[in-house]
């Protein structure tokens, strides 16, 4: 395969195989085992807009596998500011590296880069477009908790209008026949064209403004941040934000194995009292970004992850 630009570049079988690889790589991601599968390979980190979290996660993934990383550096001081085209930047980095992870403010930039490059591109977010490595780590986290993806009931809550994370995840979950509940204020509903597209692909969707009524038979509750900037009226924001806050007191009647996820950073959507409950999974989710990206780096570089990682790796 070439790069990973959207989730459509992967079949369901490939997704499962990558999640299997990621699971076996967990001890390597945790630093318990050294397995230099990518020794001698170089990742180019091209972040045309700041995203410390995603960039660090790619860098950690590469280094845990014995590979090396070169960074574009601060966009403000790089040649991009001097008006260099994406095409030219890619020509240069393509010659220096074996694989490129990139984030760019413009939609379609990752596909454009892939068409300009010889090495595979890992899309780390292109404008309001796609962010498939986030979706992969979300799927990994869900499967880790439930042992499967198929047929789960997933509640996505908060800002469903602007969040590309929830758009992409909804598409992926639909491919695995999950039941979806979209809980959001009217103003931040899932875009109509996405709902229509998901329905056309056979999704079972419930839309509601009442998050709390939908929690008790959920397998996953995926919270997102509601941004103040989306509202013109301060009071309206306060009202809406208040309706999408989880407190440990709200969790008395939920399923024992229900997990709560959040792409982070959170503001007030999840009260710290939830952190200590068995349901909180957002910090593991963030950590899973490393292991999911490790598996993707291996996949795109054509390196197979050994079946028995414990045997192949060495203790640290």
């Amino acid at each position, binding site marked *: 395969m070439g790069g990973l630009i959207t989730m459509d570049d992967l079949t369901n079988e490939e997704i499962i195989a990558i999640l299997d690889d990621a699971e076996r790589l967990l001890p390597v991601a945790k630093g318990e085992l050294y397995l230099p599968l990518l020794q001698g390979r170089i990742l180019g980190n091209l972040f045309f807009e700041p995203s410390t979290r995603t960039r660090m996660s790619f860098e950690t993934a590469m280094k845990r596998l014995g590979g090396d990383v070169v960074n574009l550096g601060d966009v403000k001081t790089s040649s991009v500011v001097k008006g260099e*085209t*994406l*095409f030219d930047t890619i020509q240069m980095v393509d010659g220096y590296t074996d694989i490129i992870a990139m984030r760019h403010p*413009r*939609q*379609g*930039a990752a596909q*454009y880069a892939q*068409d300009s490059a010889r090495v595979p591109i890992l899309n780390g977010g292109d*404008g309001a477009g796609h962010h498939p490595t986030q979706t992969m780590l979300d799927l990994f986290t869900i499967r880790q908790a439930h042992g499967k993806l198929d047929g789960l009931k997933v509640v996505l809550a908060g800002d469903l209008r602007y969040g590309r994370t929830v758009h992409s995840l909804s598409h992926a979950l639909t491919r695995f026949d999950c039941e979806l509940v979209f809980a959001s204020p009217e103003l931040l509903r899932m875009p109509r064209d996405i709902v229509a597209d998901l329905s056309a692909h056979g999704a079972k969707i419930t839309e509601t403004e009442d998050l709390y009524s939908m929690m008790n038979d959920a397998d996953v509750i995926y919270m997102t941040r509601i941004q103040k900037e989306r509202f013109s009226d301060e009071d309206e924001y306060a009202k809406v934000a208040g309706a999408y806050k989880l407190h440990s007191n709200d969790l008395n009647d939920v399923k024992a194995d229900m997990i709560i996820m959040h792409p982070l950073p959170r503001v007030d959507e999840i009260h710290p009292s939830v952190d200590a409950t068995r349901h909180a999974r957002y910090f593991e989710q963030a950590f899973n970004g490393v292991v999911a990206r490790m598996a993707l780096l291996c996949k795109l570089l054509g390196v197979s992850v050994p079946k028995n990682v414990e045997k192949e790796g060495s203790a640290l």
Partner: protein
Amino acid sequence: MMSNEHSMRRVTAIRNGTVIDHIPQGHALTVLEMLGINDKTSVPVSLVMNVPSKKMGSKDIIKVEDRELTQGELDRLALVAPDAHVAIIRAYTVAEKMTINLGEEVVNVVRCTMSNCITSNPREPLPHRLKVISRFPLQLRCHYCGRTQNLVELVKNVI
């Protein structure tokens, strides 16, 4: 055939130029816009709308005098009227029949209408590529950003 000949004669025969027949009814003005024919055009242009047609029920026809359409113009025409017939007229007779081709992808004919698309930077050198999702009514999807767009939006973005 008779009705075709007949309808062609609704407009005076031209000596040299191009006849575009079988334009979907109501789309002649869009064709002119796509071809860049406007109030600054000096050659005579005649246009007939809502002509009865056996094949299409109703159709539009355009005749442009002293001008032969280029391949680039045919590619633009294909977006509005993928099944139009184009004849080049020289000395009152059909000298050439040109075929319109709307393939699976439209390359460097129109620009993506998404303002934040990577291709909106005019200095980026890769071609403008839009996949044909539907021929009529036209729907194209940008190869890069994935945005689906229709004719009304695209008319303003011809290259």
